[in-house]
């Protein structure tokens, strides 16, 4: 029997959800708002919430000073490339762990995750030296490789969780019908796991887009993505909050739009298998 939900409870839950949502959204809202203020308005006390003379000056200055399209393009290539490469490697890996596990599968999964527990700066020098040795500094290829490796454990874990939800019997039936390994993964498993794969792609694209340690440390002028674009507007001696906000808004806009249009898939994928 379904549990009766009282109106009062509904109101409280809705209000709480809205409050949390607004709280989480507030920094983004404030950044966008500040980007339309003058530098003097940006630091005004009391803060100006809506009623001020809106200006596009900061966007004009940022456009004039920085080659936004180059940073954007680098972000798209690096985030997209690392995600695609990661998925290509992770699907077979997750398949084998989910459907033909060995005695060590659980250990391997945990070991993979342990690489995420190391602070990135701990391997800054070894990675930098490898990059110097192989001429990968300030190249998109180098960053794609590094970001793919960083996010691979998460991709494998997510896909493994989704694949575990798929009944083995279906795959066995495909095998009995004469499907080989390639057909089994491509035509049976992948279509069934599309929501999971889609949300994994989205989440990893967002993680790679926002990655701000390696992208700042391994790039200079050619391969720098939008994280470097934002960082270039932070100032130790001078108040440039409005310009910094305009740069931040321009940097998060593409990913925000992508997230907005794909939120259904994202939520569906993230809650996949959470409720049985």
């Amino acid at each position: 029997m379904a549990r009766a939900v009282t109106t009062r409870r509904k109101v409280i839950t809705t209000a709480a959800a809205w409050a949390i949502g607004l709280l989480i959204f507030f920094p983004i809202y404030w950044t966008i708002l500040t980007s339309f203020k003058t530098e003097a308005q940006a630091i005004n006390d009391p803060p100006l919430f809506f009623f001020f003379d809106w200006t596009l000056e900061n966007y004009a200055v940022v456009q004039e000073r920085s080659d936004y399209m180059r940073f954007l393009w680098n972000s798209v290539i690096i985030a997209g490339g690392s995600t695609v490469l990661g998925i290509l490697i992770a699907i077979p890996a997750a398949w084998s762990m989910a459907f033909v596990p060995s005695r060590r599968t659980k250990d391997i999964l945990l070991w993979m995750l342990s690489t995420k527990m190391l602070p990135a700066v701990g391997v800054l020098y070894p990675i930098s030296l490898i990059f110097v040795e192989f001429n990968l500094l300030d190249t998109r290829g180098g960053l794609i490789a590094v970001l793919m490796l960083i996010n691979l454990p998460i991709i494998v874990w997510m896909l493994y969780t989704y694949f575990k939800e798929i009944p083995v019997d279906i795959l066995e039936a495909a095998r009995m019908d004469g499907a080989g390994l390639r057909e089994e993964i491509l035509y049976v498993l992948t279509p069934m796991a599309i929501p999971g794969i889609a949300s994994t792609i989205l989440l990893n694209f967002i993680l790679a887009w926002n990655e701000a340690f390696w992208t700042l440390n391994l790039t200079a002028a050619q391969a720098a993505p939008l994280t470097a674009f934002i960082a270039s507007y932070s100032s130790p001696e001078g108040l440039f909050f409005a310009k910094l906000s305009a740069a931040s808004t321009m940097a998060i806009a593409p990913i925000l739009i992508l997230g907005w249009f794909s939120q259904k898939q994202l939520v569906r994928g993230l809650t996949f298998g959470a409720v049985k």
Partner: protein
Amino acid sequence: MTLRNALCAATALTLVSAAAAQAQTITIATVNNGDMIRMQGYTDVFTEQTGIEVEWVTLEENVLRQRVTTDITTEGGQFDIMTIGMYETPIWGANDWLVPLDGLSAEYDVNDILPAMRNGLSHDGTLYAAPFYGESSMVMYRTDLMEQAGLDMPDAPTWQFIREAAAAMDDPDNDINGICLRGKAGWGEGGAFITVTANSFGARWFDEDWNAQFDQPAWKEALEFYVGLMNDYGPEGYATNGFNENLSLFQQGKCGMWIDATVAASFVTNPNDSTVADSVGFALAPNSEGVEKRSNWLWAWALAIPAGTQQEDAAKQFIEWATSKAYIELVAENEGWANVPPGARTSLYETPEYQAVPFAQKTLDSINAADPTNPTVDPVPYVGIQFVAIPEFAGIATEVSQEFSAVYAGQQSIDEALEKAQALTTDAMEAAGY
């Protein structure tokens, strides 16, 4: 036909090679400070004069330090010019990580660089970085509030006078704090400020044998004075205020006084950004009564060439251009004398137009009053005023300043913080082999 093709190919190759030779590009790592941004705007002038293209990589200050350090130590060769400060230059110069800036042209007039800046950017008498702009610290105060309080700011005030003036100008009902000072953790933020304050109370970081000195009474006296002053007349939450936060407060008319970098003078007197632009006065950074050393620091943002660059000559050409007298004149012509990069060249302060700028003379006096080789009352084995020019300092001072900021935030006592500072500094120095 074959001969014709071959000739065409050869001509094309020659043209491509010539274009490649002309389109030499240098990459410069820098920070997003106003003067640096202005310099980026004039890059075209340099390219027109020399044919050398310039790529800028602008980074946040701490990221820049991490980035250039990694690049130099791994010989990454990503940058042909780096923007570094007075702390890094002598250390990196000593390690042969930088190209010595010798053989500069006669026209450049290296002797025109202010002696304090030149000394601070040299190691063993060799210049390793050219100052783009330099700064000391000084008192900036509201002349209108000072007048209302019936006080006259001396040219060289004492901390005791500063406290008296802060008490007189403090007006919580009108949201005016008597004084605004840095308290934010970080060796270059609040750490720098409390170090120069301690200098002016007769304290020092190390004795001549590199023993930490936080257990000495002068440090306690300095901290007690600072915390008392800020608790009584400073803004709420000063423990997290750095340069930018205080600049914001001062520009909005919420501080009677602000003691900070001389470069701030051009910001607070700029009517476009500052609500108090027409009522700001300047004085030398204070000292404690009876102590000869003042609390002014010395810093420069300078351009250096990392060893290992493939484009040393082009890089040198750029540095000569960007730190030249001609560049200063170029900026003055287009944006006015108040906007030229300050604190680097003697000739700038001899220019009548610049002498008319209200903060010019006090900036020069403050820079001249700073002596990095003799920063404290008692002798010390190190160079540097608001820092100690050893590689370990940044890490140690960041931790020490975190302990002090915890005091400002009311999370621990001065005695506790000093005890911890003494212990952690001693441990770190022993581990480093001092």
